[in-house]
C-alpha cells in the first residue's frame, strides 16, 4: 500500500486523465519502443512510465501451472478493480517480455483472454492501470521441453 500511495500521488492526475478517455479518442499508436525492450522492467517503464505496481488480489490471472505447449498458453486476465484503462501482460523470460497490451475504453469490461507463446519457464505478470494507479499480479508458468507430442 505504501507504493500504491506514492504512485497515486505521482501519477494520479495523469492516469486519471488517461483512464477516462472517451471511446473515440483512444490513441491508436502501437507502442513499438515498449515492445522492443529485452528486459521486463524496461518494457514496463516504456509502456507505463514506471515499474512501481501494487500487488493486488483483485486481479485474476488465469494461466496453467505447467503449459501443455509453450506455443499456445491460454491466458485470461480479469479484475474487480474500478475504472480500468488498460491491461498489459509481460512474460518476463521471453526475448521481448511485453506480450500484449489492451486499452479499454469506458464501458469495456476488464476481462480479456488470449493465447501466448512462452519460450521457457517464466513469471507471467498482468498489470492493470486504473485511475488510481498500477496494480499487478504474477504467476509462474512452467514450460517443459516436449518429447514426441504424446
Amino acid at each position, binding site marked *: 500500500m505504501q507504493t500504491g500511495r506514492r504512485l497515486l500521488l505521482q501519477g494520479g492526475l495523469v492516469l486519471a486523465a488517461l483512464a477516462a478517455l472517451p*471511446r*473515440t479518442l*483512444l*490513441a*491508436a499508436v*502501437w*507502442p513499438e519502443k515498449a*515492445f522492443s525492450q529485452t528486459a521486463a522492467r524496461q518494457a514496463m517503464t516504456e509502456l507505463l512510465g514506471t515499474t512501481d505496481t501494487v500487488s493486488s488480489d483483485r486481479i485474476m490471472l488465469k494461466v496453467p501451472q505447467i503449459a501443455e505447449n509453450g*506455443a*499456445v*498458453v491460454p491466458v485470461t486476465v480479469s479484475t474487480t478493480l474500478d475504472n480500468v484503462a488498460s491491461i498489459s501482460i509481460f*512474460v518476463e523470460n*521471453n*526475448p*521481448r517480455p*511485453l*506480450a*500484449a*497490451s*489492451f*486499452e*479499454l*475504453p469506458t*464501458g*469495456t*469490461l476488464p*476481462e*480479456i*483472454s*488470449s*493465447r*501466448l*507463446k*512462452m519460450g521457457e519457464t517464466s513469471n507471467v505478470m498482468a498489470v492493470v492501470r486504473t485511475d488510481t494507479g498500477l496494480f499487478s499480479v504474477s504467476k509462474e508458468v512452467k514450460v517443459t521441453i516436449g518429447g514426441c507430442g504424446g
Partner: protein
Amino acid sequence: MAGKIKVKTKLVGNVAEVKCLMLHPMETGTRKDPDTGEVVPAHHITQLTSTNNGETVMVANFSTAVSQNPYFSFKFQGAKAGDTLKISWVDNRGKSDEVETTL
C-alpha cells in the same frame, strides 16, 4: 480468401462477449526455416481494433508473443441486438484485414 477473421458474439443483457480468431503466422523473427536454414523475418499483427456502431470498444496491441492464428476475447457493456461490431487488424508489414458482424 474467405474468413481470415472469425468472430463469435454472445449478448447477455447489454454485455456483449466477443471472441475472435485470426489467421496469421505471427512469425517471431527468430525462427529458422527448416528447409533453407534462413531466419524467417518477423511478421505479426501489431494492433487489433474493435468498434461497435463506430465507437471504439477495444484496442489491443500485440507482440510476436501472441500465438500463431491469434485468439482474443473481450466483453463490453452498452451493446444491444442489431449493433454493428467491427474488428480489424494491421500487421508490421502494413497488411490489414477486417470483418463486420451484427450482434
